[in-house]
């Protein structure tokens, strides 16, 4: 327990360092990027632009801005105001978008793991059969097709050809299923392949042979002795998988018109919405870091040889 707490403390320290580093880098990037956040179709006069700058504290020296903003984040958790969505503060934008993105990601990941592990186990156990080959071929297909193509095809198939899902939008469970499936598909494919490989490896292990020799049922052996070992690569993939799901959601939010965080992320970066961009990057960084930490803990839980350090 002590070690776990110590580990978490150290990780937290690293996270603070990471977030700070990311903040600094993105601040510099944003300052370097040409262009003003106040460009509008009706060009604004310099006087007005100056007013706008002053309103957002963008008229201070860069170093001053750097500290002021950092101070606001640390003391008040205040990420500032969005420059483009004028009625919203960055915190509000995140508060509205996060639940959507998170729901989508949770569904996608759960779906991907359940489907991927099941498929992987089946194809490892029935290695070489038609089921195995076809499942693995599908899995490769899942990896080989960009998800915007997959999503467009899925819409044609499940919205128009077999009308079971609504075309887009957010608000009901039915609306979340199709995007979550599309988002989870590549992850599921990857998980299936990893599970299969892991299963095949553990099936060769001595302790599994012993278990079989003891006369335990196939089911028991696979669930109790093979699967946990086979899960290691899957667990270590969960970190990158989360990153993949977050990136993938940018595309799906666009295609399915979902009000998640992903679209803000792209807009903020391309439209020079300084504060929103920084806020988004920080949120994503914290998310990824947390996920990586959880993966490390899970690793230690599954494999007793691994020590948290």
């Amino acid at each position: 327990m002590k070690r776990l707490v110590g580990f978490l403390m150290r990780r937290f320290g690293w996270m603070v360092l990471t977030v700070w580093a990311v903040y600094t880098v993105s601040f510099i990037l944003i300052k370097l990027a040409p262009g003003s956040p106040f460009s509008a179709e009706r060009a604004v006069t310099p006087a007005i632009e100056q007013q706008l700058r002053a309103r957002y504290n963008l008229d201070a020296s860069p170093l001053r801005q750097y500290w002021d903003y950092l101070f606001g984040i640390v003391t008040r958790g205040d990420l500032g105001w969005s420059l483009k969505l004028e009625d919203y503060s960055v915190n509000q934008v995140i508060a509205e978008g996060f639940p959507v993105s998170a729901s989508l990601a949770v569904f996608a990941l759960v779906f991907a793991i359940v489907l991927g592990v099941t498929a992987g186990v089946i194809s490892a156990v029935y290695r070489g059969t038609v089921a195995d080959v076809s499942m693995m071929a599908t899995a490769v297909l899942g990896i080989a097709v960009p998800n915007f193509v997959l999503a467009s095809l899925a819409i044609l198939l499940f919205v128009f050809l077999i009308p079971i899902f609504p075309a887009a939008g957010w608000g009901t469970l039915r609306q979340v299923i199709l995007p979550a499936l599309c988002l989870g598909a590549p992850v599921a494919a990857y998980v299936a392949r990893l599970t299969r490989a892991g299963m095949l490896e553990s099936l060769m292990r001595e302790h599994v042979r012993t278990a079989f020799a003891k006369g335990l049922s196939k089911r028991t052996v696979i669930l109790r002795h093979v699967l946990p070992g086979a899960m290691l690569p899957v667990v270590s993939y969960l970190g990158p998988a989360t990153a993949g799901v977050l990136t993938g959601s940018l595309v799906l939010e666009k295609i399915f018109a979902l009000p998640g965080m992903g679209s803000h992320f792209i807009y903020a970066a391309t439209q020079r919405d300084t504060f929103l961009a920084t806020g988004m990057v920080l949120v994503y960084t914290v998310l990824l870091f947390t996920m990586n930490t959880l993966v490390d803990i899970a690793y230690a839980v599954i494999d007793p040889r691994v020590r948290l350090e």
Partner: protein
Amino acid sequence: MPLELRRALVAVTLVIVVVAVLWASRFDAMPPADFSFQNGTDPKTLDPHRATGQPEGHILFNIFSGLLEALPEGPPDPETGVQALTPQPSVAAGYEVSPDNMTYTFTLRRDATWSDGVPITSDDFVWSWTRMLHPETACEYNFQLFSLPYAEAYATGVVDVGDRVEVELWDRPGETTTSEANPQNFPRGTIVYGILKEIAKPPEPSLPENASKELISSTTAKWQSSWVYTIDVAKRDADDILWDDVESVETFASDLDSTLVQPDTRRAHGVLVAFDQLGAMETPDPYTFIVHLKDPLPYFPFLATYYPLFPVPRHCIELHGKPMWTRPENIVTNGPYRVGLRMLRDRVRLVKDPNWFNADSVEVETIDAMSIESANTALNMYTTGELDWVYDQPITLIEELKGRDDFHVAPQLAAYYYELNTLRPPLDDVRVRRALALAINREQIVQEVTKAGQAPAYFLVPPGIAGYQSPPGIDGTLDEAKALLAEAGYPGGRGIPKFTILYNTNEAHRAVAEVIQQQWQNNLNIQVGLQNMEWGSFLDKRQQKRFDISRAAWIGDYPDPNTFLDLWLSESIQNNGSWVNEDYDRLLAEAASESDTTKRMSLLSQAEAIWVDEVPAIPIYHYVSKHLVKPYVNGFFLSPQDQHPLRLLRLENSR
């Protein structure tokens, strides 16, 4: 790790997963609105003084009412089905114009109230227009009131010695003389009126030649804040300012650390022309609102139908401040609908306001303005019945849609053109510009690329403005184009410097650019590059004049040629191509002060002839608006301004 802890962690993980899934599948299902439409990008703001785009317009026109409202008048055009919109009474029950077209007297309805029941009076308009023009509001559309005397000086913060000015002291709520500025410009600090006697300025800081725009504007602003103003403060009686009675002579500055500050100098936000005290607007009684113009603008009533001139709720803004007052729980409106709900990047739900003065005529109870950007997604939702009106369809499908009964096309007051940077070679040569313009096959572009019935454009101003006749457009053969190019020193396209077409990321713009690229290659042997950028960066690049050729489009702000032609005034900030022509400027200035409509239009037409001759931009086509509207929707009018008052909609029950 001990076994028990591992077991516990496994259990905890499982619980977390289950809780997460349960949490994720918990939705508050919302009942669908009676009518839903595609509203493009998420609206930037619901503040009429800060909004600019079409998505904001679709909402603002329905939650606020102005003095006048643009409504369809007369029978639809038999060919196109288009009905012209004209200014008709709204909050103003009627108005009178003086014979010289310089004074408008609006009589307000007595039953017009804000959605919280507070009555709307003429003072609301004075306050709203002052806020709209106030420099700190930074309203992009503030030029729409520049026809009022002193409005432009007020909005741009220009003051001269001898002006009647207002000084806003440094005592806005929460401010002390040493504190930072409160960014809320309303409610305002104490206002002192007087006549500006002197401005003492420290020496102007010198800047390196290559200083960035940002540095220049911040240095200038800092310098200006150290100016010290000397003012003859005027006496006031009950409701008048006695400009000629000097009460005291005082000095004001916004930066008290300035070297020129005297011991009794008071801190102030700035010195502006006393716009609202100089007779531009009069309120003889709460229900009479008189506006004096400095130019006889024939289109002023149209401006009054546009949202920047709408009244905004003073009591609400002063209570909540910006931007909080536009939050759905705070906002007070005065239109047929109020804001029921706003979900970022999802929808704005409009709910019928029973307090609106003409509420009985409004039929549709709830309307969803859905923030959907992808044309394909919108079309899918329309097909499955989740949307009732879609105004942006994928261009690949226009041909398929054109045959359908629910697809409506109407000419729009908008032009699509390629702006040329006339400072950069080879585009600084008018012969090259004309050759490029001649070598574009516009018929092919409108028929095979845009396909919805856009009109090929050979001049700037879209047809359909009453009383205006555009000059003959750009005309010539390919051989003439080649000859012009040779004359300019590039025979057969040889030796021409490479240039690039800049466009904002969009399938349709890309297609047009690619076709023009091919046409120039085929016809003139000129190879051009293409570059796409996101909207924000694209605008920025144009405004900093760092482009060769840029895709551009302009939607008329009001039905008058001036809205297009004034973009190329040499002093216009919209003139990104840096084209300067004195005759052009002079003709537009003459037209502005001309009260005879026919003469005015002919002056504008002459100006456009110069434009066509000099080709500061290559016109490509004039827009059409394209609407997919479900057949059970009645009361959807097509208009050149492309405005669609939602309160006129009627839904058939048979949906």
